[in-house]
C-alpha cells in the first residue's frame, strides 16, 4: 500500500489538489477552476483524485492553504491550515534550498517572498491591484482573442516596445485599447502588457527590497514565458520556473502537513471517502448590529459542522452541539 500526503490550495480562481509521497516527490497534481464555488470545486477535485489514485493508497495527512483554507479544513479535516505565503515559501525551499527570492503571481493576488539562509525574512502581498494578477491576463487574452497559453510566446515575437500604463486594471485596459487604436501590432501590445505587469510588480511589491538570485517564479502566471522574460530583463538574472509552478501552494501545505503528522502521530483527515459526502451551506444576515454580517452555516451530511462570517464571534465561537459530526 502506497503511503501518500495530500495538499489542497483553494483560491478564488483555482482549486489545486496535489499528492506527494513520503520523500516529498510529487505524484499527481490536479487543477480545477473554482468559479466562485469552492465547495463544489474541492469536492470534484478530491473525487477525481480519489479515482486517479485507485484503491491501494493510504493518506497519512492533509494540509490546506489558499483563501479558502479554513473552508477546506472544515470540509476535509486538515492536519495543518497554513496561509499561502508560508506555504509558498516552504514549497520553494523544497525545490531550491538556497532560494533567496520568490515571485508569486496567482489568479487573484501577487506576492513577493524574500528568504535568507533558508528562512523567510520579508514578504509583501498585493490584493488590491487586479492589474498584476492572472485574472487580468486571462481577461485581456480573451479580449484579444488569443488563447492564454499562447500569450507568452506571442510576447517573445515582439520587435518593438509599447508602453502600457495603469495602476489598476481599468486604466491598464483602457490604455491598452488606446494603444490598439493607435495601430500597434498585437505582439507588441502583448509584450507591453507583460512588461507593464513585471514593472508594476517590482515597483509595487519589490520597492526598496533587495531581490537577490536565485529567483523562483511561481503561481499560475509563471507559465507565461513573456512575463518570465520581462522579469529576467528587469532583474538582470536568470529566473527559475519550477515544474509544478502553478501548484506550489498546495505542495507547501502538503509538506507542512507531513511534518505536523510526524509530530502528532496521526492525521485529522477524514478520509478520501469524504468526497462522497454532501456539503451544504446556508447563510443569513445577522441583524444584531449595523454591520449586518453575512453568517454562513456549513453542513456536512446534513449536520451543522461550522459557522463563520460574523465579525463579533457571536455565531462562530459557539460550540456546535452535535458532537458526533466528525463521524458523519
Amino acid at each position, binding site marked *: 500500500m502506497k503511503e501518500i500526503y495530500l495538499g489542497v490550495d483553494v483560491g478564488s480562481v483555482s482549486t489545486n489538489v496535489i499528492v506527494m509521497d513520503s520523500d516529498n516527490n510529487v505524484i499527481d497534481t490536479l487543477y480545477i477552476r473554482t468559479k466562485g464555488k469552492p465547495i463544489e470545486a474541492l469536492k470534484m477535485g478530491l473525487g477525481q483524485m480519489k479515482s486517479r489514485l485507485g484503491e491501494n493508497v493510504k493518506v497519512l495527512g492533509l494540509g490546506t492553504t489558499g483563501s479558502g483554507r479554513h473552508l477546506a479544513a472544515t470540509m476535509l479535516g486538515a492536519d495543518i491550515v497554513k496561509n499561502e505565503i508560508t506555504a509558498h515559501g516552504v514549497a520553494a525551499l523544497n525545490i531550491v534550498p538556497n532560494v533567496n527570492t520568490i515571485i508569486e503571481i496567482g489568479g487573484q493576488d501577487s506576492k513577493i517572498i524574500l528568504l535568507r539562509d533558508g528562512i523567510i525574512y520579508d514578504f509583501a502581498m498585493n490584493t488590491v491591484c487586479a492589474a498584476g494578477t492572472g485574472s487580468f491576463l486571462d481577461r485581456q487574452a480573451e479580449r484579444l482573442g488569443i488563447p492564454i497559453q499562447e500569450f507568452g510566446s506571442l510576447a517573445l515575437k515582439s520587435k518593438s516596445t509599447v508602453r502600457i500604463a495603469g495602476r489598476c486594471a481599468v486604466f491598464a485596459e*483602457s490604455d491598452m485599447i488606446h494603444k490598439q487604436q493607435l495601430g500597434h501590432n498585437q505582439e507588441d501590445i502583448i509584450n507591453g502588457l507583460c512588461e507593464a505587469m513585471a514593472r508594476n510588480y517590482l515597483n509595487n511589491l519589490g520597492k526598496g527590497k533587495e531581490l537577490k538570485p536565485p529567483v523562483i517564479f511561481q503561481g499560475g502566471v509563471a507559465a507565461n514565458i513573456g512575463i518570465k522574460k520581462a522579469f529576467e530583463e528587469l532583474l538582470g538574472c536568470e529566473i527559475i520556473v519550477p515544474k509544478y509552478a502553478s501548484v506550489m501552494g498546495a505542495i507547501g501545505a502538503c509538506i507542512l502537513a507531513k511534518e505536523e503528522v510526524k509530530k502528532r502521530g496521526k492525521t485529522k483527515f477524514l478520509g478520501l471517502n469524504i468526497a462522497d459526502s454532501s456539503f451544504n451551506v446556508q447563510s443569513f444576515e445577522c441583524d444584531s448590529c449595523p454591520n449586518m454580517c453575512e453568517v454562513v452555516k456549513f453542513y456536512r451530511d446534513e449536520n451543522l459542522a461550522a459557522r463563520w462570517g460574523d465579525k463579533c464571534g457571536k455565531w462562530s465561537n459557539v460550540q456546535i452541539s452535535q458532537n458526533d459530526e466528525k463521524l458523519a
Partner: protein
Amino acid sequence: MKITFPHMGNTYIALKVIFEELGAEVVIPPKCNKNTLELGTLYSPELMCIPFKITVGNYLESIEKGADTMFMWGGCDVCRIGYYNTLQKDILQSLGYEIQMFCLEPMKNINDVKNFLKKLSFVSGSKNYIKVLPIFIKGLRTLYEIDELDDLVIKIRPRELNRGAVDRLYSSFKEDVNNANGYKSIVETIRRYKEKLLKIEIDKDKEVLRVGIVGEIYTVVEPFINQYLIERLGNMGVEVHRSVTSSEFIKEQLDFIPFLKSDKEEVHRGAKPYLNTEIGGHARHTVGNTVLYSEKNYDGVIHLMPFTCMPEIVAGSILSIVEKDKDIPILKLVLDEMTGESGYLTRIEAFIDLLLNRRESKFYERDISWS
C-alpha cells in the same frame, strides 16, 4: 561644483540665471520624459506625490550628466514638501551618489532672505552675501520675464490664424534659451521672442472659451506632469489662465517687502466664505482663485492635483460647493505616473464641449430675455 535643479515648468530658466551669474557650472536636467518619471517612480515611496517622483527623476538624470549639487525649495509646511529634501537626499545617497543638497526655505522676513543669500554666496565661494543680492534680483526679473512670455503664449495660441505658429516659435525659443548663458543673454532671448510672438497673426475678434487653472503649483506649471494641458487647451481654441505661477508664488513669499505687491489678499478674500485659513500647500489659493474666476465670468475651472495630495483633497472637497454656489463648472484632474493619456484627453474634450454648450445656451437665454 556642478549644480542642478528640477525644471518646474520654466522656473529653471531663472535658476539658471542665478547660478550662472554666481559663477557655478549649471547642469540642466534633460527635458522631463518617460524615463525621468520611470526613474523617479522606481526610487520613490509608492504613494508619494508626483512632483516628488519627477524631481527625483530630474536629479538622477542630471547626475548622469555630471551634476553633484542639487537645489530645491522646501521647508516646513503642513504638506509633504518639507520632507522632500530629507527623503531625496537619502534616496540619492543610498544609491551611492556623493552629492550635496541645498534648499530654499520659505521666506517670511528679511532675515530669511539674508539666510538664503548666505547659502547662495556659498555657491559663488564669496563670503559677502550682500554681493549676491543683485544676482538674486536678476533671477527674480528673469522669472517675471518668463512668466510674462508664457502668459502671452497662452493668450495668442487660441487666436492664431496659422495653426501651430505659436508652438513652432515656442520650441525654437526653448532651444535658444537653453543655449543662452547669463542674465543678459537669457533676458534678451526672452524679449526677442516676445516681439516675435506679438507678430503672429491672430483673429482678434475670435470668441474663445476662458478656462482658469487652479491647483497644486507643480502640477500647474510643469507641462510634463499635466500632460501639456495648457498647450492642448490652447490648440483647442481655449484661453487659459494659470492662477498659480512661480513668479506669483515668489511675490507672495516676498510681499513683506514694501514695493512688492501680490494678489494674495484678493485670493484670500475670495476663499474667505469657504476656507479662511492656510491649511498647507495651495489649498486656499485653489478655493480663492476658483471664486475669483467665477467673479470674472470665466467659462470653467480645471482643478489639478497630484494623486494623494493632502491640501488639494481638502480643496477639492470644498470646490464641490463652490461649483454649485457660483454656478461654474469645475473639472478635477488627478495626476500621477499612472494617468493614461486616452482617458485624460477624453475628459478634457468632454469638459470643453460642456462649456461650449453652456455658453451657447446662455446666449440663447439672453436672447429670449431681450425679446
